[in-house]
């Protein structure tokens, strides 16, 4: 039983890290109809600013630098690269996001070297024992900071603003004819997503390790989680990633640790066959 609780808890921590990126995918998708696959690489870039670029300075200032450098890069990429491409072809937009992700990842590898870097948790290296269950301070910090940020994002993008996002997503021109500033909505979701990506990028390395290439798998798994729950709402996308994190952890703990990644993508294929709109999206929902 203790084992089980331990495994679920560590799965929840992993799930929160995925969920931060899932939430970013979901709000950007809702506001622009575009899946920004550069988020994984941008998170890693934030990780390098947080743990590698300025050794010796306090973690708070490193995290702040990650935010003020990487979030504007993400917004700039939207305005200069993705928005003009997505307007003409959403599919080309997705491919360009993958391309940018590779450019960022190679730039990181070139600048900082393709070696794993250590990342000390901003919450310290302590451990707490409750019953037989052990929790690191990092795990608790991730659950707290990530949980608060995810809850805030879900609340901010529910009800009224969710309707605006849906309207832009379903019929952008009609939304504009009603007075909605569609470009500003797109910019707003991009800025919020940038913050989520940076937070994920700073919280993840102590748990996942830090290499230039870790963003690819993290970004993809977070996308799987978002689709699992339902990509067009933040709440469902977050729930999907939490479930995926716990399921991955249970699979790794009880069945095979080596096949975890295969399990994740196996689940993905299964979901796409059985419920392509996501587990939590009502059957009456229409796609345009």
């Amino acid at each position, binding site marked *: 039983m203790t084992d089980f609780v331990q495994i679920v808890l560590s799965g929840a921590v992993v799930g929160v890290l995925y969920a931060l990126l899932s939430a970013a995918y979901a709000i950007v998708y809702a506001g622009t109809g575009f899946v920004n696959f550069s988020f994984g690489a941008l998170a890693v870039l934030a990780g390098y600013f947080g743990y590698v670029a300025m050794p010796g300075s306090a973690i708070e200032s490193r995290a702040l630098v990650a935010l003020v450098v990487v979030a504007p890069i993400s917004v700039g990429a939207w305005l200069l690269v993705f928005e003009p491409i997505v307007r003409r072809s959403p599919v080309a937009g997705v491919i360009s996001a993958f391309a940018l992700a590779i450019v960022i990842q190679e730039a990181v590898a070139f600048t900082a070297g393709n070696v794993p870097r250590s990342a000390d948790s901003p919450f310290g290296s302590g451990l707490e024992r409750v019953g037989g269950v052990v929790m690191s301070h990092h795990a608790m910090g991730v659950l707290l900071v990530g949980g608060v940020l995810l809850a805030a994002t879900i609340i901010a993008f529910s009800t009224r603003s969710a309707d*605006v996002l*849906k*309207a832009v997503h379903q019929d952008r021109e*009609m939304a*504009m004819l009603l*007075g909605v*500033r569609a470009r500003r909505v797109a910019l707003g979701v991009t800025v919020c997503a940038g913050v989520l990506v940076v937070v994920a990028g700073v919280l993840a390395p102590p748990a996942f390790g830090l290499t230039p290439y870790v963003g690819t798998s993290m970004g993809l798994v977070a996308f799987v989680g978002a689709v699992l729950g339902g990509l067009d709402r933040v709440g469902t996308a977050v729930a999907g990633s939490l479930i995926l994190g716990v399921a991955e952890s249970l699979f790794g703990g009880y069945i095979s640790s080596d096949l975890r990644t295969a399990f994740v993508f196996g689940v993905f294929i299964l979901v796409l066959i059985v419920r392509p709109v996501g587990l939590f999206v009502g059957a009456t*929902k229409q796609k345009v």
Partner: protein
Amino acid sequence: MTEPSTLSLAAASYGYDGVPIVRDVSLEVATGEAVFLVGPNGAGKSTTLAGIFGTAEPMGGSTSWRGDEMGASWGPHQRARSGLSLVPEGRRIFPSIGVEAQLRLAHRAARRIRSELDHDLGFVYEIFPRLAERRQQQGGLLSGGEQQMLAIGRALMQAPSILVVDELSMGLAPTVYQDVADRLLGLLRDGLGLLLVEQNARLAMKLCHRGYLMSNGNIVLSGTSHEMAESGEMHDLYLGAQ
């Protein structure tokens, strides 16, 4: 009553991707009057509306509202917020947003005063009791007639000065149509201006005092409903062909 405001197109041309679709269109609609724009399918009526609302490119001439030239820099959202509202062809209801949520969205997007929301909702529900019954229903689950009611209600939530309706009769049962038309005409006294775009010229001429006939991207005839109904050109070009 205050001085009427005028939406004015003077020799305006509009099109897409650099190709003009309608040329040298001149027409005027003032607050407090109902004007029709009729013409066969493909005459350029919808492109003219897209020009008015800023979703087609202006390619010459002038498009002005309350004396201000609405150039390419006037985005659709700006036009919506300045008192121009559209009930578009095909209704364009958001399928997965609820009825009341769409009404609220239209209110907010046009920057209407928050404290008037309940009053405006009540006004729309009074005209369309059917929408009140369906207020939680998602737009995509409404019947065609209900969607038309929602499209009109959505525009009315914006308290427009000029309401442009592309095919008012579309999807509405004849009795509902008559009722809605009467309600809209009743709003003229409060200073609403109406531009009714119809394929069915007879319906449009019954509702409006004057109007325009479009054909092949041009305005080919204008005048009072009476004059136009009598005109041989109207019959040759259009009514006779129906």
